[in-house]
């Protein structure tokens, strides 16, 4: 499901025009991005938490050339699902 499909299905559920939904989604994304940029944690109840984590700098060695490279620290967005979602997902059978 891509962006457009998501908007379409949401619009159908809300009985609202797609353009409104698209605007709202855009605003939500922008808000979340802003908050994350401030390194704040965003909790969506019953869904999960978006969190910014700092990855410390590390030394990586290229396995074949043995060139050592210092990887600088960085901030990454991490998502952790809530237990509610986890429980819901238990109902999905695992095929393989």
């Amino acid at each position, binding site marked *: *499901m*891509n*962006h457009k499909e*998501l908007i379409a*299905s*949401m619009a159908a*559920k*809300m009985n609202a025009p797609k353009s409104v*939904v698209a*605007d*709202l*989604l*855009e*605003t*939500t*994304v922008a*808000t*979340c*991005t802003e*908050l*994350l*940029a*401030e*390194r*704040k*944690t*965003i*909790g*969506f*109840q019953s*869904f*999960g*938490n*978006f969190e*910014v984590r700092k990855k410390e700098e590390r*030394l990586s060695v290229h396995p074949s*050339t*043995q*060139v*050592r*490279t*210092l*990887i*600088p*620290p*960085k*901030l*990454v*967005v*991490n*998502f952790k*699902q809530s237990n509610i*979602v*986890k429980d*819901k*997902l*238990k109902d*999905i059978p*695992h095929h*393989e």
Partner: protein
Amino acid sequence: MNKEKISSQEIIDLVASKASVSKRAAEEFLKVMIATIEEALMAGEVVKIKNFGTFKLQWNEPRKSVNVQTGEEIILQGYHKVTFTPETSLKDIVNEPFAHLEPVQLDGDNDFIIPEKKEEEVLDPLRIFTEQASEIKDLLSEINALSPTPKRKEIEKKEIVVKDYFDVEDHRTIETEIIAPVEPIEIEQPAVVELPVIEPEVKPEQSEVFIQDEVVPELYEGDEAKAYVPEQSIEPIFENETDPVFESTPFLVGVKPRRKRKRWLWITAVLVLLVGCIGLYLFLPPANKIGNEAFAGTKAGMSYVKNVSIPGFVGSIKKFFSPELKKISVTETVVIPKDTALTDTVEVVEPVDSLQLLFDNPRVYNEFIASEQINAGSRLTIMSKKYYGTKDFWVYIYEANKERIQNPDNIEMGTLIRIPKLDPRLIDASNPRCMQKALELHDEYVRKKPSKSGSSD
């Protein structure tokens, strides 16, 4: 601030105010959004949100574990997990505070070996230099202290070398060989060494050279006479060194200008020493005479030396040294222009254009477009990105504020940084030469502080 958690309610409020919709509408929207995403995930779909990221389901296999309390083995059930992969744009925005950092390739093993080898090659002649320099120093200190014990070992070694060198010559070699056993002192050695120097130029005047031979041993005796020794031993250094320099200048200038400069430092130092020694000798002829006479008595082969009067000595020495000095000065004047001329040509080879001039001329910062106060998290690179568009041009900000910044990696809080107005040609990010220059400057400034290498290891 960092750990502050924003709840759904706050998000709803924010979205409502931003999109200018009622809170209820925003709340409904958010609920629907989450429900839709969940549904799609349940159906095994991947959900993509533009500018945000992708939600995906991931199956975690069941695995064995141990109950920590009882030590029993338990099996953790496999479960599905929602994973979120942020899009590049979100990643970049979040990582903004560290965006200026780049992976640094530490010197690999290969890199370590190559420079070491090079250093050794370069060091070899330098080491000889320093050895000789220390020798000279020792001798000088001896003179100063008027201590009677000369450094025999070193001198004798030299003597052998010199003899080999001189075997080609008939009577002179004989002479020196005779002298060598008779005189245990080092004087003859420098005298012999000098011969090659003079020979090519003064060959017709062999008599003068002879006098030289005789004179030099005599100088030996008095302590003042030792002043001679450094001077003499210096000369070979000078000759040996200048000649190769001459021949190889074209290469040297291009490849190792630094080494050459050092050499010239040495040569000038040697010249100063030489002049000083001559002065010392000329001022102390009587003492010399006494020494000479006493010495003459001890050696049979050298009796003829006695007949030469001291004024004669001085004259001959003067004669001997004046051409020598002239020669030295001549070589010097010749070589120095050569040096500069060559470096000039090296520069000329590169295309000279306005950009090159911009690079080469020291930049003067008079106009400033802004100023910023350093606070926690401030970085020159970030400022550079803000004002010039690329972080690599932070070096120019540093240059403009050099007097306030001690360490570009750790600027004191509260420092007011002025952002200089730069020639747009200088900070053209699309021009590889601008980038190259900025990188060069970066290397120069970052390498200045020794702490960098230590911390990176």
